[in-house]
C-alpha cells in the first residue's frame, strides 16, 4: 500500500513535466493560433512516445499502466494542454487496425474529440485532424473527420477550438469496451488535478512577493486561509486520483466508484481553485495577459467531459464499495 508516485513513476512524471514545459508551455496561449495541437507538435509528441504510454508493447506502445497515464496527464493539465492530446492517446488504445494505430501513435494522423450535447455533438480539438473519437461508458468509436461537417463556434477556452454538428457518419472503427472511457475519465481527472495544483502554485508564488499596506499579501489571513483551503482541495483530489488509478490498475471491483469520486473531486478542486486564484490576485487576475483565466476556462471545458457533476453524483449516490 503506497498512495503516491515512487521509483520510475517519479521519473516519468518529471520527464513529462520537462517535455511539456518546453513543447507546450501554458504561455503559448497568449499567442494567436495557439488552440489545439497542430501537426508539427503532434509529431513531436509522437516521436517521444507520449501517446502510447498505456498501449501494450505488443501493439507498439510502452506497455505502462493507467498510473503512468495519469501522471502524464496531470502534467498536461498544469500547462492547459489541449484535449487533442487526450483524444490522440485514447485513440491509440482504441484502434484495432495496426497500420492506423501506428500513424496515431506517431502523430502523423490526428484525432479530435466528440462530446455528446443533447441531440447534437460538440467537436473539441483540431478541426484539421483526420479522425474524431467519441467515447461512451461502454464504447469507443472513431469517425473520419473528412465526412463530418462541423460548424465552428467561438470557444471560451483558448486551449481548444470548438465546433457543433448534428449527424455522425458511419464509424471507421468501433471498440465495445469500457476501457477507453476509464482511460478518458482518469486522464481528464488528472488534467483537472494539474489545474487545481497550478492555480495554487500561482497564488502562493504571488503571495510571497506582492505587497499591500506594507506587507506581503501572503502574511494576511484573508489570503492565507483561502490558500490553505485550496491546498486541501488539491490534496483531496490528488489522493483520490491516486486511489482510483491504482484501483483500476489492480482491477478492483469498485474501481469505477472511486473513479467517479476522483472525477468529481477533480472537477470541484480545479473550478474552485482556479476561481480563488483569480480573486486573490486582485486586478491582475482578470488581465488577459495573466494565466489565471486560462486555467479557469480550461477547467470549465474539462469538467464537462467524461462525467459532469450531475451524472457523477447520480451514480455515486447509490454506489457501494467492495467489502
Amino acid at each position, binding site marked *: 500500500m503506497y498512495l503516491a508516485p515512487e521509483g520510475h513513476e517519479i521519473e516519468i512524471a518529471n520527464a513529462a513535466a520537462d517535455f511539456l514545459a518546453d513543447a507546450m508551455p501554458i504561455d503559448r496561449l497568449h499567442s494567436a493560433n495557439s488552440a489545439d495541437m497542430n501537426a508539427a507538435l503532434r509529431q513531436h509528441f509522437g516521436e517521444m512516445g507520449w501517446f502510447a504510454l498505456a498501449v501494450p508493447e505488443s501493439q507498439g506502445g510502452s506497455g505502462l499502466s493507467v498510473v503512468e497515464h495519469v501522471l502524464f496527464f496531470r502534467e498536461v493539465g498544469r500547462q492547459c494542454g489541449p484535449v487533442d492530446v487526450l483524444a490522440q492517446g485514447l485513440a491509440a488504445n482504441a484502434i484495432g487496425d495496426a497500420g492506423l494505430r501506428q500513424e496515431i501513435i506517431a502523430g502523423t494522423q490526428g484525432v479530435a474529440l466528440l462530446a455528446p450535447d443533447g441531440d447534437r455533438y460538440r467537436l473539441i480539438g483540431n478541426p484539421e485532424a483526420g479522425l474524431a473519437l467519441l467515447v461512451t461508458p461502454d464504447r469507443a468509436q472513431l469517425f473520419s473527420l473528412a465526412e463530418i461537417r462541423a460548424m465552428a463556434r467561438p470557444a471560451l477556452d483558448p486551449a481548444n477550438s470548438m465546433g457543433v454538428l448534428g449527424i455522425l457518419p458511419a464509424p471507421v472503427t468501433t471498440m465495445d469496451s469500457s476501457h477507453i472511457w476509464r482511460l478518458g475519465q482518469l486522464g481528464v481527472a488528472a488534467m483537472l488535478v494539474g489545474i487545481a495544483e497550478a492555480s495554487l502554485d500561482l497564488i502562493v508564488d504571488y503571495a*510571497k512577493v506582492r505587497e499591500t499596506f506594507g506587507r506581503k499579501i501572503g502574511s494576511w489571513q484573508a489570503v492565507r486561509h483561502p490558500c490553505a483551503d485550496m491546498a486541501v482541495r488539491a490534496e483531496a483530489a490528488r489522493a483520490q486520483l491516486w*486511489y482510483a488509478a491504482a484501483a483500476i490498475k489492480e482491477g478492483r471491483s469498485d474501481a469505477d466508484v472511486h473513479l467517479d469520486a476522483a472525477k468529481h473531486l477533480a472537477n470541484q478542486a480545479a473550478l474552485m481553485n482556479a476561481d480563488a486564484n483569480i480573486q486573490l490576485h486582485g486586478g491582475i487576475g482578470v488581465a488577459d495577459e495573466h494565466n489565471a483565466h486560462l486555467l479557469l476556462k480550461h477547467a470549465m471545458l474539462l469538467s464537462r467531459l467524461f462525467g459532469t457533476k450531475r451524472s457523477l453524483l447520480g451514480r*455515486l449516490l447509490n454506489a457501494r464499495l467492495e467489502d
Partner: protein
Amino acid sequence: MDLQYSEADREFRARAREWLKTNVPAQSRPANGVSGAQFDRDWQRKLYDNGWAGVAWPEEYGGLGLSGLQQVIWYEELARAHAPHHINTTYVALMHAGPTLIACGTEEQKTFHLPRILSGEALWCQGFSEPNAGSDLAAIKTRGVIDGDHIVVTGAKMWTTDAQYADYQELLIRTDPDSQRHKGLTWVICDMKAPGIDIRPIRTMLQDEHVNTVFYDEVRIPLTNVVGEVGGGWSTAMATLSFERGLGFIGDQLELYERVCRAIDLAEKVTLEDGRRAIEDDGIAQRLAAIKADTLAIRSMTLADIAETDRTGMPGPKGSMMKLMVTTTHKALSEVVGEILGWDFLEFNGDRAAHPWTYEYLWSWVFSISGGTNEIQREITADRVLGLPKAR
C-alpha cells in the same frame, strides 16, 4: 503506487473482523458520567486482555508492534462492527499521551504508564489551553516553580475534556518566569489526585459537562514526571499535537463513509413536507452524493498519509489539512441531515444515543475547534505546507 495489502494485513483484518463479530458490547454506552467512563475502561480492558490494544505501539510496552496500515485496518473494522466510538474518556491517553511518551518519555515513564494506558487502568486528560491562551498556546501563564526535586504548579487550565474522570494529565506549564512565548515551557505528567487540584465543569451547547476548568494551587509534581527537557516543553507539546492532528481522528475519518451511507438510507425513508421522499429532492441527493465522494477522498488521504508515515516514522504537517477536510465534511453531513429530518432534528435532550444526528451536529463545533481551531489549522497549512510569509 499500489493498493495491495500484504498477507499479514489480510490475515489481521480477518482475525479482527471475526473477533469483533462476537465481542462488541450489546448495550450502548451510558450518557456521560462515571458510568460512561467505566464503560470505556471496561471496553479498553477487554481489548487489552484479548490482544487488540495498541496495534501500532511497541511490543515492549504492551502494544502489538504492527504497522500504521494495520492500525487503519483495525479502525476500519471497528467502524464496520459499530464498536464503541474511539473518542471517549480513553482518547487522550491512547491518542496523545501514549504516542508522546513513546516519542519523548524516559524508560521509567514508558514502562510505568504505557501498559496502564493500554489496559484502560489509567485515563488521561490534556492541560494545554488556559482562560487566556487557546489558539495562542505559547501565551500560557500557569506557573511551575522548581523546589528541590519537585515542580510546584499554580494557575488554571481550561477546556480540559474528561478531567473529572482522568488519573493523569499532560500538563504544559511555564517553568521559567522570565521566559517569553515558546521558551521556558515544560511538559509534565500531573497526577489528578494530587492535593491542590480543583475541577469545575463547564456546561456546553451539547447540554453536557465533558469539559472543565482545572485550578492548581501549589500542586507538587516530581521532577521525574517531566517529559522531554525542563524548558523544552514546546517541542514535546508539538509532538503531542502532531499525533492528534495526524491520526487522532482516524476513527472518525473512516467512519464518515458509513455515516453518509446511513444518511442516504434515512433519506430513502423520510417524507418531506411536500410529500416526496427526501432522496427525491435533487438538492438533498446531490449534496449527499458529494459528501460521499468527499468521504472516499478522506479515506484515500488517510491511507496516503499512513503509508507515508510508515516510511518516515513521524506524522507530517498534512495532518492539519486532513483535520480541515474531515471537520468541514462532518459539518456538511450534519447540515443536510438536519434538512432531511425537518422538525425531528430539533428534538434533543443531550443523549447521544437517543438523538444521534442532532448530537453530531452540535459536536461538529467541538470537532472544528478542539485540537486547534480550523483557523489555526489553516495557519499551520499556510506556514508549513505552503511556506507563505509569516502572519505573526
